[in-house]
């Protein structure tokens, strides 16, 4: 099964490059959208209302970002009605393995997994195995 649209949110360009590369390689998505900040991502999501763009079904989200961090983004995204309509899922993708962060993130229903960087193809395969894609 393929996901129509995957949203990748990270302020680190190298990480975006690597992650984009790996997700592309795993061939689970028809389309990968990359946003460099939570604000930009929210802006993008608001635009999906017009119907021109698909609301993403899977979002890879970094935690540590300037202005609005990953948790701030989570607080916002759960307010979008499409999140529920499209059964949108969030996978945290952070360089932190701080248990507090993991716990805090997993408390959001929308978050289905917490990956510690670097992302590997096996991780995506695992996600697919679980039937989350």
């Amino acid at each position, binding site marked *: 099964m393929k996901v129509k649209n995957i949203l990748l949110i990270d302020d680190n360009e190298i*990480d975006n490059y*690597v992650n984009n590369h*790996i997700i592309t*390689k795993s061939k689970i998505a028809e389309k990968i959208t990359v946003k460099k900040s939570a604000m930009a991502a929210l802006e993008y999501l608001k635009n999906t209302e017009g119907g021109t763009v698909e609301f993403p079904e899977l979002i890879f989200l970094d935690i540590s970002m300037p202005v609005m961090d990953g948790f701030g983004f989570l607080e916002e995204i759960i307010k979008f009605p499409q999140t529920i309509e499209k059964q949108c899922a969030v996978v945290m993708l952070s*360089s932190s*393995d701080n248990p507090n962060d993991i716990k805090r993130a997993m408390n959001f229903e929308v978050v289905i997994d917490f990956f510690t*960087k*670097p992302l*590997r193809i096996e991780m995506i395969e695992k996600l697919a195995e679980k039937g989350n894609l």
Partner: protein
Amino acid sequence: MVNSKQLSLELTLLVFIMSLFVIGVGIFGFIKIRESNNSSKELYTDRILPMDQLADIRFYTSNIIATARQIDGKKIAYNDALRKIVQSQDSIRINWKKYQKSYLTDQEKQLALNAKIQIDKSDRAIERLKLALKKEDANLLDSILKNELYPNLNLVVIEVSNLLRLQVKIGEAINQNNDSNYKTYTSEIIWIILIAFGFAVPFLYYLIKKNSAIVNNLKLNKAKLFLTEKNYRNLIEYAGEAILILNEETEIIDLNEEACTLFGYTREELLNINISELVPSDEIEKQAEDVALIRKDKFAQISRKIKRKDGSFIQTEISNRSMDGKGFFAILRDVTARKNAEEVIKKSEEKYRYLFDNNPAYIIIWDLETLEVLEINNAVLCKYGYSKEEWSRMSVLDYRPKEDYSKIEEFAKYMLVHDDPIVTRNWSHYKKNGDKMIMEIASHKIDYNNRKAILSLANDVTMQIKAEEKLKQSEEKHRVLTENISDAILLLDKEGKILYQSPSAERISGYSFEDVKEKSITEFLVSDELFRGQLFLKEILENPNMPKQNQFRINHKKGHEIWIEGTAINLLENESVKAIILNYRDVTDNKIFENELIRYNSELKKTNAELDRFVYSASHDLRAPLKSMLGLIYVTKECADPEDSELHERLAMLNNSVGKLDDFIEDILHYSRNARMGLDKDEINFGKIIEEIKGSHKFIEGIKGVQFHVEISSSGLFVSDYRRLGVVLNNLLSNALKYRDVSKEKSFVNIIIRSDKTNAVIVVEDNGVGIANNDKEKIFEMFYRATTLSSGSGLGLYIVKEALEKLEGTINVESEQDKGTKFIVEIPNQISNLN
């Protein structure tokens, strides 16, 4: 004098008793004779008369039979026979009637019934015979005779004979009964007579013995002869003192005029009187003892109260002499007056003795010349612990300290010649057990049994003096304390006005007592504390006797603020205080210090939190680029030509190097957290924790070749710090993987966990490269790396040890180089501390 009255009384009594016996025996005999008379009457009426009647019946029956035989033999005329038969028949009827009226026993009645039947039958036969005789019918006669008369009459004879034999038998029984009764009565009477003799003989013996007095009476004459009649009379009459002559039985046989006057009886009365009437009843026993004494010693001087005729008592002194079995010679003197005087003296002496002995004061009388103790009272005896015996050998020095000896000796010498009035002063005395007492002693000079002595009246003032000393000490202590303690003491009245301040108060506030006197305590408070101060004062006033603590800022005389801290207690109701007591001290320095401490503490908290944030973000910021690098290496490797081994090798080295740096940062992060964070209490799921750790290691190169064996047995809930336990297990597992022995065909890691309600034992065992013996002790040290294989920071096991210290656990290692390593971790179950 022989007491004839008593004698006659006793004789009358004897005669009376004997008469009673005789009358008793007579009455008894009479009754028994009557009984035997009745018995013989009964024998006559019940037995002899009926016997006669029965004999008549038999006789007349035989008579009829004889007549019948005469008829049979035609030897008698019919009319003669008829007459004879009629006569006999009448006699039989009369006698039978009489017999039936007599007393019959049951057996007799039975026999009589049989006889009656026969007699009636015979009667009827006789009637028919009489008819036949009248008709003179020979044939009829013959048949009646043969068939009726003979058999019936013969039977009557037999029945009657039976009755007669019974009569004889009954009569014999009665006779035998009478005979045995006679024997019983005879023996009874003999016994009664014997008993009577039993009483009478001792009584008679007693009387005879008594009457020997009559004989003794005669002996008086002999006594008179003993002294010669003339001398005797002179002695008796002109002795000038009452004289009584008594016989051996202490009966008065002679006396003189003085004796009459003494007793108030006439001569005749006294001669007839029993001596016991002259002695008061309560002294009779004593008198008997005295008599016995005189008999034994021949002479005795005795003192006796006697009873006069008018009932009054007089005290006499009696000189008694026994006259060798001829009686007693007694001279009596009236000593009532003397006796009374003696009695008064004795009583007053007793009274003094009583006062002396029972006086609560300690009284000692001692000899001024010899210093001997002459007398002590009971109080002294109890107090000092010496026995009476010991006191009798003691001198007045023996119970005093040596340093007082000379003082006492001087005092004795002085008192011997001077007659000073009572001297009172304190002396030290010792008890037998060595206890020292301070006695306040009043000494009086007295004459005691013609010796110059000191009567010392003592009071134990030990306690009093001790108490006085204590009081003095306590006052002094109090004064020193209040003047010298750094705490200030204020006394306030109910309006909060200062009544007193201790000297230290001035040292604290700078104000002298003159400055604060009569001023309200609230005046000295810093203005913004005024309201709180007033509230506190109110609270104290409302809660008497309850100490209340508080702190206030007050203005020092020099103008700066100072902190005071102290306790106030409302003792306004306490009679001896009647004030609010305030004690306080200057805590300005403490307060400054405390404030500083609070400030430092909050700063420290802030710093700590900042540090935490710093470590977090630093580690994150440091790790983020590393993670990016790892990602890049990964991507590059994926895209690289698989044939280009050189590139792959370099990428692997790069990957290793970046991974090491990342691990190192993670270690530092763990260490930092362990050191600063408090202990969490989480429910531990060992299975889950192991799975998580295994998961985080799954990308390590070659891990797939390692065999994992996990064995968990938990009983009940296990509670510990999840994160720290994770760090421990992660490090151990990571080490086991990292130091696997690649030369071995198969590598394995065994994880065995056993937990119960007290603790958990975790064993992590591998067949890795092992640890050299001399390294074992150092592996837990910071930055120690035992092997060249080590690619880590040298922090791992150090962090394990640190974390276990926090968990209150222990770790042990068993290892052999090239064989493998076994870590044994033991951590307590914190379930009891779980909130």
